[in-house]
C-alpha cells in the first residue's frame, strides 16, 4: 500500500481527537439536561476522530506522501528558528535590539545579503517603526534591558 498524504493527515487528526478526549478526563460531561464543561469538547473530539478516519478511508484520492514537495522546508525551518529566537529575546532585550538582530539574521543567514546593507536596512526599518509606534500611534513597544 502506498502511504498517501491523507493517510498521514487523517491519522494526525485521529491522534489529536484521542488526545483531547484523554485530556478531558477530569472535565465533567454532565447530563443532557445539564451539560458540563466536558460535554462539547468530547463531542467535537469524537467528530474529529470520525472525520479523520473518513479522510484516511478516502486517502486514495490524495497524492502519495513521498511526492509532497518539501523544497521550501529548509526556508520554513530557518525562518521558524530565527523567529523563535527573536520571540525568546523579545521581552528581555526589548523591541529595538531584538528586531534589528532578527531581521539581520533573516537577511544574512537565509537571504545571503550583504551584512552591511542588511544591518542598515534592519536598523532603519526597526527605528522608524519604533518611532512611529511611540510618537504617532502612542503605543509603546517593549524597551527590554536597554529601554525604559
Amino acid at each position, binding site marked *: 500500500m502506498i502511504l498517501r498524504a491523507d493517510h498521514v493527515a487523517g491519522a494526525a487528526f485521529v491522534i489529536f481527537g484521542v488526545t483531547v478526549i484523554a485530556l478531558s478526563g477530569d472535565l465533567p460531561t454532565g447530563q443532557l439536561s445539564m451539560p458540563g464543561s466536558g460535554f462539547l469538547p468530547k463531542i467535537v473530539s469524537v467528530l474529529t476522530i470520525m472525520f479523520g478516519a473518513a479522510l484516511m478511508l478516502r486517502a486514495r484520492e490524495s497524492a502519495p506522501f513521498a511526492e509532497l514537495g518539501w523544497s521550501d522546508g529548509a526556508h520554513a525551518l530557518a525562518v521558524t528558528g530565527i523567529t523563535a529566537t527573536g520571540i525568546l529575546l523579545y521581552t528581555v532585550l526589548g523591541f529595538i535590539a531584538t528586531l534589528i538582530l532578527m531581521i539581520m539574521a533573516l537577511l544574512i543567514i537565509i537571504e545571503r545579503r550583504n551584512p552591511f546593507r542588511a544591518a542598515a536596512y534592519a536598523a532603519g*526599518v526597526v527605528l522608524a517603526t519604533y518611532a512611529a509606534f511611540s510618537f504617532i500611534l502612542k503605543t509603546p513597544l517593549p524597551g527590554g534591558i536597554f529601554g525604559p
Partner: protein
Amino acid sequence: MDGTLVSLLHGFAVALQPANLWYAFLGCLVGTLVGVLPGIGPLSGISILLPVTFGLNATQAVIMLAGIYYGSQYGGSTTSILMRIPGEASSVMTCIDGNAMARRGRAGAALCIAAAGSFIAGTFGVVMLTLIAPPLATIALKFGPPEYTALLVLGLIFLAYMSSTSLVRTLLMACLGLTFGMIGIDNMTGHFRYSFGIAELGDGIGIVPVAVGLFGLGEILATPSHKVAGEVIAPKFRELLPNREEWRQSAMPIARGSVLGFIIGIIPGSAHVISSFLSYALEKKVSKNPEEFGKGAVAGVAGPESANNSASTGAFVPMLALGIPTGPITAVLIGALMIHGVPPGPQLVTDHPSVFWGFIASMYVGNLMLLALNLPLVSVFVTVLRIPYAYLYPMIIMFCIIGVYEVSHSIVDVWIMLIMGVLGYLLRKFQFDPAPLVLGLVIAPVFEQSLRQSLIMSNGNYFIFLGRPISLGLVILSAGLLALSAYAFLMKRKDWRTKLAEAEAGES
C-alpha cells in the same frame, strides 16, 4: 424608510468628522497597500493593525479596519493586472484577463475598469447593506439560544459546502477551531480546560495570534523569496482611461458582478474569493465571444473585480445584523468591536447607533476615497511592487510580532502565533484551507453557550431545535446542504467548487 434615511444622515454626521475621515483614509490607504503586496492578505493586515486601534474609539477603530478590508479588494487588482500575481486571494481571476490586457498595452484601462467596477459595486453593496441590515437585526432580536445554535451550525455547514476543498477537510478544520475555542475557563461552570497551568491560557486563545500565525506567518514560511519573482508592467499615466468600446463592454459585467457579489457575500465562506470566480464563470457563459476570455476580455476584469468588492460589503450584513461572522475577516472585526466594548449583534443598531450608522456612512465615503486613491497613485504602487520580497518578509514578521504582542502584552500569544504559523504551513502542504479553523475558534464560545442553554431549557430534549419555526427552518437548510454535498460526492460531479480549487491552484 424615513427612519433609515434619518439614521443614515446621523451616520454621515459621524463619518464626516475630520478624525473619522482621517481614519477612513488611513484604512483605505493601508488596505490598498495590503492588497497590492503579495503575501499579506486583508486578514493578516487587519490582525496586525488591530492593536493600533486600541487608542481609538470603537467607531474610529471599525471604520479604519473595515477600510483595510475593502481597500485590499481594490489593491489586489493592481498586482494581478501588472504582475499576474494575485495581491490577495480574491484577485486570482483578475490575473487572467487583467494581465493579458496589460500585455496588449491596456494596463491603464484594465486598472481603471477594475477601480470603476470596484467603486460602483462597493457603493451598490453599501446601499443594500443600509437597506437590509437594520430590518434583519429587528428579526434577529427574536432569536433565542436554539435559533442561535441552529444558525451557527448552518453557518459552519454553509462554509463547508462553499469551500473549494472537500466537505470532510472543511469540517475537520472547523472541529479543530472549535477545540481551540474551548481552551480556557468554561463560562458556565468556571472549570479550567486544557490550560496546562499556563495562566494566560485561562482567557482562551485569542483570534489575533491564530489568524496572524495561520495566514501571515504561515504564508511566509511557505514562500521562499526565490519563488517570488515577477515582472511589473508600469502603465503610462495618459493610458489610464479606457476607450468608449471598453467602457461599453464593462457596463453589464459590473452590474451583474455587483448583484452576484452581494448575494454571495451574505453567505458564510470566503465570499469575496468565491464571488469573483462565479462572476468570471458567469461572464464567460453569457459572453458572445467566450474565446476572448484568457486573452484580455474586458468583462473578465470588470465582473470579478466588481463581484469581490460587492461581496466584501455583503459580508457585513450578518456581522452587523446578527453578530455572526461569515468568514475569518468579519470574525476579526467582531473581535475588534468586542475589544472596544461594543458587543456585536442585533442590539448594535439600537444600543450603539453612532457606531453602526457611522460605520455604514464611512463606507460610502471610503469607496470615493479609494477611487481617488487608486488611479493617481498607481506609480507609487508600482514602486512598492519593486521592493524585493527578500527585504519585505522580515518586515512583515516584525509587524506580526508587534501586532500579536500588543493585543494583551503577552509573549504567550506570540508563541501561539509561531505555533499557528507552523500549523498553517503544514495545513497548506496537506491541502487544508485554514479559514474554517478561524471561524470555529470565534464561534466556539457562543455556540457552546447557546447549545448548553438550549438543552437546559428543554430539559435535555434535542427536539427543541425542531419545535421552533426559525430553528426548524435553519435545521432543514443545513440538512439540505449536507444532502447536496453528499449528492455531488456520490455522483463524482465536478461542480463549481472543484473548478474554483483548480483555478486557485493554477494561479498560485
